């Protein structure tokens, strides 16, 4: 089962290649189409002892060491689509944004072939965008949504945006409802910042149902994967040297071989003059990642080319700290090492957002290809939580509140 997606993928690519050769002689060969999108953004953070980044795989952001950052939201993407026949197409999208090493070397965001088995049934193979939330498929295309970025309190629960594998989409039109059912299987590797190696998701599968009726869109999805993060191994190996108590702590918090599951529900109503969008999600793993849930509601009103909007978001997580090993029962010679492990475990546990965020912003469509947005976020962090911040400095204190100010310019070609 573990190797099935890869084998199936290879088989499919080969057979699609064969079909492509035959169909290439169709009388109406389709042209390549090219598209590009870009966002240039700056963000300011009032928290100077930690770094705000728009996802955990970027090392540089706003706050520490510089209050302002242009590396958080800035992204450039280019896409080439080939319509080989009416039934077969291929697409490659390259994205350049801040990588785990702080550089901007372009990555293949996705590269897949799509085959229409029937007009309503599509199968795709290769690197595919992962649909988690309403906007996460186009999360890098700033022009496609009203905000400067999708609500981070909620969207960063599932920061991975692509998967290598297969996806099958079935579309059903009944009365005036369009329902799209989607099944995905695959795997995903993400490079972590610094020397963190990678996070791997294996035996990954998911289901999603999207229903659309006029201005209303609803979305429900479930996904699960086995997660492997090698960089945490030494921490849990350390605990395992401390007898039964250490063994129990390691088993409870170890990340590897644990199932990570995600349930997300959302709805959006957009009749044109205004929009209201709300999503709720829950992620759970019996590991140091624990259980998290978050939701947001957002609304905006369009006045000509200007759309003022607001967002209220709430993120909750359990288990932000653990007493760890009982130091008093340990000989003095190893108590220091045990205290070090306890501190390391607690620092990992605290990296979870427990916060409420109010955001106010505006989008100005000054042309039909470009939009300028400004957004202010005020977050109140729960006790013991470092919110969405990384790169915590020694004098950083959890909890408290923080303001972000972001301005972006997004274009599509």
């Amino acid at each position, binding site marked *: 089962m573990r190797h099935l997606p890869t084998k199936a993928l290879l088989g499919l690519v080969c057979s699609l290649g064969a079909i492509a050769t035959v169909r290439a002689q169709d009388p109406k060969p389709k042209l390549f*189409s090219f*598209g590009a*999108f870009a966002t240039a953004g700056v963000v300011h953070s009032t928290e100077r002892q930690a770094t705000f980044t728009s996802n955990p795989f970027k090392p540089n952001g706003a706050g520490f060491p510089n209050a302002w950052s242009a590396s958080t939201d800035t992204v450039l*993407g280019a*896409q080439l*689509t080939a319509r080989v026949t009416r039934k077969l197409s291929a*697409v490659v*999208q390259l994205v350049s944004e801040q990588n785990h090493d702080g550089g901007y070397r372009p990555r293949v965001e*996705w590269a*897949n072939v*799509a085959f229409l088995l029937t*007009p*309503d049934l599509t199968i*795709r193979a290769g690197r595919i*965008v992962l649909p988690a939330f309403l*906007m996460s*498929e*186009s999360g*890098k*295309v700033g*022009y*496609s*949504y009203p905000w400067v970025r999708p609500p981070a309190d909620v969207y960063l629960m599932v920061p991975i945006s692509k998967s290598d594998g297969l996806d099958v989409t079935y*579309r059903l*039109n009944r009365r*005036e409802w*369009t329902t799209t059912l989607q099944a995905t299987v695959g795997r995903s590797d993400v490079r972590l910042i610094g020397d963190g190696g990678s996070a791997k998701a294996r035996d990954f599968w998911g289901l999603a149902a999207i229903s*659309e*009726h*006029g*201005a209303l869109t609803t979305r429900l999805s479930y996904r699960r994967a086995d997660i492997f993060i090698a960089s945490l191994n030494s921490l849990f190996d350390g605990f395992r040297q401390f007898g039964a108590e250490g063994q129990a702590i390691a088993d409870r918090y170890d990340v590897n071989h644990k199932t990570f599951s995600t349930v997300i529900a959302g709805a959006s109503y957009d*009749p*044109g*003059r205004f929009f209201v969008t709300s999503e709720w999600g829950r992620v759970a793993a019996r590991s140091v990642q624990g259980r998290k849930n978050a939701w947001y509601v957002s609304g905006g009103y*369009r006045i000509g*080319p200007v759309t003022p909007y607001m967002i209220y978001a709430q993120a909750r997580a359990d288990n932000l700290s653990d007493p760890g090993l009982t130091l008093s029962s340990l000989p003095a010679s190893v108590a220091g090492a045990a205290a070090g492990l306890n501190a390391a475990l607690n620092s990992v546990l605290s990296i979870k957002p427990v916060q409420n965020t109010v955001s106010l912003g505006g989008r100005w*469509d000054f042309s*039909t*290809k470009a*939009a300028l947005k400004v957004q202010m976020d005020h977050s109140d962090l729960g006790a013991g939580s470092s919110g969405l911040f990384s790169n915590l400095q020694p004098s950083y204190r959890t909890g408290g509140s923080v303001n972000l100010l972001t301005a972006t310019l997004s274009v*599509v070609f």
Partner: protein
Amino acid sequence: MTRRGSLTDARFALIACALCFSPAIAAAEMVAVVAAKSGVTTLSRNQVMDVFLGKAIRFPDGTIAIPIDQAEGSAERNAFYSEFGGKSPAQIKAHWSKVIFTGRGRPPREVLNGVEVKKFIARNPGAIGYIDSTLVDGDVRVISER
């Protein structure tokens, strides 16, 4: 002084009036049309929008629908999306940027104007377009009005 002031006011009022009425005169009512020999008789505005936004690929009777757009930026196109879907050109662009950059489809083919839409419909039995109501003749059937 007072007299000149009121004259200017009157002129402004005239210009303002012309501004608010001229779009209504330039872009009369848009209607959604199919070929006269098509089996499709009537669609709701939502159904028409679903086809043009790529949400629906079939007519209610199960046949494949081929939407045909008018030129980007044309008064007819802007009027159609505004009257049928309440959407501005920027909103339509945002919709397609979402669809295109997730590899889920692409916008309808487009032709220059309403006359070209009628020619396209004559050649393609499954085609659906929108034209100014004054262009309606025996070759096309109106299936949805504003």
